[in-house]
């Protein structure tokens, strides 16, 4: 993972739209401890805006009644939360031990060469974004790539090329 703690402030307050507001109220009744709602709330933000800005983190903290620093921790810990706008297709490459040893670097280098993006970047046309993430839990079939949420195991540059070609 790279440093995710430089949050982006958009300069205007965040709030849920009516649909997410209702969903928040529905979900929060499930949790005896309100703080358990931090992660579902972050999902709701991401669903609404596609990514999570600094203002949204303050908003969630206030709404749940917890410290912004706590929401900040969770939002930066889990790479599934986007802390900046991502491309139409989001590629995650695992960089933890098994994948590291099974040459995840080949995949990362390929993407740099082919699409011109390094971890943390979005391609100029906005089609792709890339992030290096921690263990995706499929170590037995490393290296692992997660493309738009779906797992692709035992990957290499060639397989990835074929996979990307199927996308519009």
């Amino acid at each position, binding site marked *: 993972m790279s*440093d995710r703690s430089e949050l982006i402030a958009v300069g205007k307050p965040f709030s849920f739209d009516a649909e997410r507001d209702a969903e928040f109220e529905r979900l929060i009744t499930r949790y005896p401890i309100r703080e358990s709602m931090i992660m579902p709330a972050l999902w709701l933000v991401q669903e609404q805006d596609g990514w999570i800005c600094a203002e949204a983190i303050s908003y969630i903290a206030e709404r749940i009644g917890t410290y912004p*620093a706590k929401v900040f921790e969770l939002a930066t*810990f889990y790479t599934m939360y986007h802390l900046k706008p991502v491309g139409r297709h989001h590629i995650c490459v695992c960089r933890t031990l098994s994948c590291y040893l099974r040459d995840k670097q080949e995949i990362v280098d390929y993407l740099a060469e082919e699409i011109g993006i390094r971890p943390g970047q979005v391609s100029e046309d906005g089609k792709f974004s890339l992030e290096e993430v921690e263990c995706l839990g499929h170590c037995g079939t490393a290296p692992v790539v997660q493309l738009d949420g779906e797992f692709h195991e035992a990957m290499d540059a060639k397989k990835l090329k074929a996979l990307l070609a199927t996308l519009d």
Partner: protein
Amino acid sequence: MAEMVKLFVNGQEVAVEQGKNLIDALKVVGIEIPHFCYHPALGADGNCRMCLVGIEDGRPPLVPACKTPAMEGMKVLLDAEHIKKIQHDVLELELINHPIDCPVCDQAGECTLQDYYMTYSLDDSRRGVEPVKKGKRMDLGCGVVHDQERCVLCARCVRFTRQITRTGELGIVNRSDEARVAIFPGKPLDNRYALNIVDICPVGAMTSSDFRFRQRVWFLKKDEGICHGCSKGCNIYIDHHREKYKDDMIYRFRARTNLQVNGYFICDEGRLSYHRENENRQSQTRVDGGVVGFEEGIKAFRSRLDTARKPLMLLSADCTLEQMWAVKRIANLYGAGLSGYSDASVLPGDGDDYLIQDDKAANRKGLELLGIDSSKESFMAALQDADLLVNFNNDLFFSNINDELRPLLDSKECIAVCSHARKLFEKAAIIIPTASYSEYGGTIVNGDGVLQLFRKAVTKNDDPHDILEITRLLGGAIVDAARAWPGIRQSVAVLSAVQPEQIPAEGLKLQSSEEPHVGS
């Protein structure tokens, strides 16, 4: 008294408190288990793994000592090869990305990481790649400066803000080798206890902007003292040093554990109040505006007291019991009135429900116990009548409630025995410099009725006389603190059995049910 159990450490039998975690239990008998994240005030977090030990009873080969309670017959292994290996390994992990900048690090000399490296590691680095870069000299607020690269991620600081101050400003963001302590952008530390973080951080990741680069810690003489910032009487270390050709100066106060008084922490204001011990001190003796020698000042003091028709003595609520007693005796000797009026040092509403008290005086209870009248009415009445006011270091203008007294005070001849140069004392006919609390010893009673003993820590080049000594020079019979006690014991029922030298380290809680009874 907690129940004791026998257990074995590396085959050697020791008796320790049952149920205490192994780190604390074995510390009492002088056995160290290295640890970063555990802190008695913050509990066992189990995140650092530095405290792993072996317990030979069929459990897994390594268990965290911080989460293992001492039990009868336990066989604890600290020196087995696999334990030493894990200690090496954990230290190697901590040091992989550490900047190892001890020569310019304030913590050097009192750094857990440095000490453990010397004791448990001494390995060479095997890192062949660039270390991870993180934030340096980050201003986290409240005078706390953070170096993310030196951090071992023990989360003590984070837990402090969540469990103790409940302000939650800090968090650990990111994960893996990118993890680091941070504030949420725009929400810096904002509480009155934040500098404790500097004390509890085991490494040099949290430093105090007040202390940074002022002094290497190994030069500091660390004496025990009691904060005089309010009536809590928090226990502190007074870290002071006399640089070559200079004077003995205090460089910092640090929290000292006293579970009966302040627990493990102190407030920031109290911590920084050491500046007041160093600065703005009254050092000259003055008589009628001119600077004179100390002896001459005392001579003038005596003769004015002798000729005064109706002297009034005013004590500070910061004085020790012994000083109060000595002044009380001297007031008797000279037929002077005596008051402890010091309402100005109470700041209503300033205190909180933790340590900080409204009452900024250290020993108001002492005035009460010794039956010294401290009411405004009697002070005013006595002052109207008096032709000489002898003020023993009582800053009537500490807050502004006494501003209207100024004309009356100005109209009276005043002798000021004072540790600091203050507006109030400027017009005094005679000014006698005196020691402040880091420069004398004695006993004080805090707002909760805990009697505590403290000793002289700082010795100035030109060491000022303490109030008690000044009363002796005025002809008083109390020649030292011990000599005050027979009289105090006789006059104050709750103190009748007190031997000051035997006051336990955590202080003596006085029975509040007993009414102060004062003999003549």
